[in-house]
């Protein structure tokens, strides 16, 4: 790494601010695109920023009968998890600043930490809505986690490495893996939406049924931290899928365009599909998602054995 690149990556990543701001911009792109698909004008570009600042300056109410440590601690842990995951991911087309053997697995679990925290936050609540939301969050976690992992495992196996950097370098030097492993790409994309609890997988926070799911009792700062964590998670996960399936890191501008294409696809799916029931979500993942991902990995193993 040249000194300039090192300086840039330190300025851009651990500082977190750029990361959070880019997360907000992605969130805005997503909301705006959904609005355009619904023939609306949509939010202004600073909307997520205004939402976050407003939430941060609002009063935070702690309902009676909750464990304070969990109530105040969980949002912080969730955000920390998302920001830590960002250290190992190729954000905005810059190569990840840290990497060690096996960082792919660590990153994926850091991303799941967010869902765990939301689930626990709901579990800690005294309201029945947050309890139902928490149950649904955990159920959905068990549904999409394995297929999503398997979908990202495909490129890792093709590249023979558990390091995000190596996999994206491999992806850069070969055919785009969306062509060689199309099933994996679809599963990764849909898994991404499940991870972020976007429609049609928004049963855990279905506002028409269970108020606001696990975060019903959160107000002000806690809610803001969860929101920031979610938008950071969006950036990290989108970057990972792009780097793995759409031809590696390449140059930052091209990378940005590719990530926006993924956001566009996600917005299209969000605008098109309606919410699935939680049992339909689980059925979808375990009946089709996991099996297809396993099948693809089997084919990959056989092909590798045959070619070697």
């Amino acid at each position, binding site marked *: 790494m040249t000194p300039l690149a090192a300086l840039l990556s330190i300025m851009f990543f651990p500082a977190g601010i750029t990361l959070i701001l880019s997360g907000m911009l992605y969130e805005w792109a997503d*909301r705006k695109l959904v*609005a355009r698909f*619904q*023939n*609306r*004008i*949509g*939010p*202004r570009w*600073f*909307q997520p*920023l*205004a*939402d*976050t*600042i*407003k939430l941060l*300056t*609002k*009063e*935070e*109410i702690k309902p009676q009968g909750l464990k304070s440590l969990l109530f105040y601690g969980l949002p912080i842990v969730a955000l920390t998890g998302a920001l830590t995951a960002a250290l190992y991911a190729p954000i905005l087309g810059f190569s990840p600043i840290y990497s060690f053997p096996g960082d792919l697995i660590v990153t994926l679990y850091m991303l799941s930490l967010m869902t765990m925290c939301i689930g626990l936050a709901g579990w800690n609540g005294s309201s029945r*809505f947050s309890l139902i939301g928490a149950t649904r969050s955990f159920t959905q976690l068990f549904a999409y986690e394995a297929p999503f992992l398997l979908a990202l495992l495909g490129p890792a196996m093709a590249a023979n490495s558990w390091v995000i950097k190596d996999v994206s370098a491999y992806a850069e030097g070969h055919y785009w893996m969306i062509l060689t492993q199309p099933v994996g790409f679809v599963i990764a994309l849909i898994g991404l939406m499940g991870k972020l609890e976007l429609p049609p997988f928004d049963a855990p926070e279905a*506002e*028409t049924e*269970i*108020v*606001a799911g696990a*975060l*019903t*009792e*959160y*107000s*002000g700062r806690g*809610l803001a931290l969860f929101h920031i964590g979610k938008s950071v998670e969006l950036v990290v996960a989108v970057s990972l899928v792009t780097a793995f399936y759409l031809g590696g890191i390449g140059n930052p501008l091209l990378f940005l365009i590719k990530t926006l294409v993924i956001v566009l696809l996600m917005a299209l799916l969000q605008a098109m599909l309606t919410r699935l029931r939680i049992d339909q979500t689980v059925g979808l993942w375990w009946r089709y998602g996991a099996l297809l991902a396993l099948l693809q990995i089997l084919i990959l193993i056989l092909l590798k054995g045959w070619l070697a």
Partner: protein
Amino acid sequence: MNFPQNYVSQLMEKITTWARINSPWAIHFNSGSCNGCDIEILATLTPRYDIERFGIKLRGSPRHADVLICTGPVTRQARERLLRTYEQMPEPKFVVVVGSCGISGGVFQGCYNVVGHINEVLPVDAFIPGCPPRPEAIIDGIVKLLAHIQRGTRPALVIKPGVQEAA
């Protein structure tokens, strides 16, 4: 010595107000209306009027909301729930009344089961008249409320006493 600190706090104040008027999240409560006003509020949320362009979002939970949109007169049964919903909202919070019933009791004035208009129970920041008001009127009312917040003027937080409990 004091000057920079003042300056910083003024700046913070400005940023806070800016964020507040650009992202009012609303919650909708019907305390006994005939549903006419509620339907107009729902019409306001449709893509045709698209209030997300002002940053207005309808939230399910009062804990997430800034603006309480009330419709209808307050019935004896709904009074407790209305107050509770209001108290569950974190500060700063604003109340908007939609429809003539919420302003004066309207056609339900003097009913045996009605406490009265909303301002007898909650401190109201904006009234939107009409029976029911059109979506444009509702948007106009909300925008006026936002201007009100920007100027930093609010009615005093006094809950009016003298709500009659006996029949």
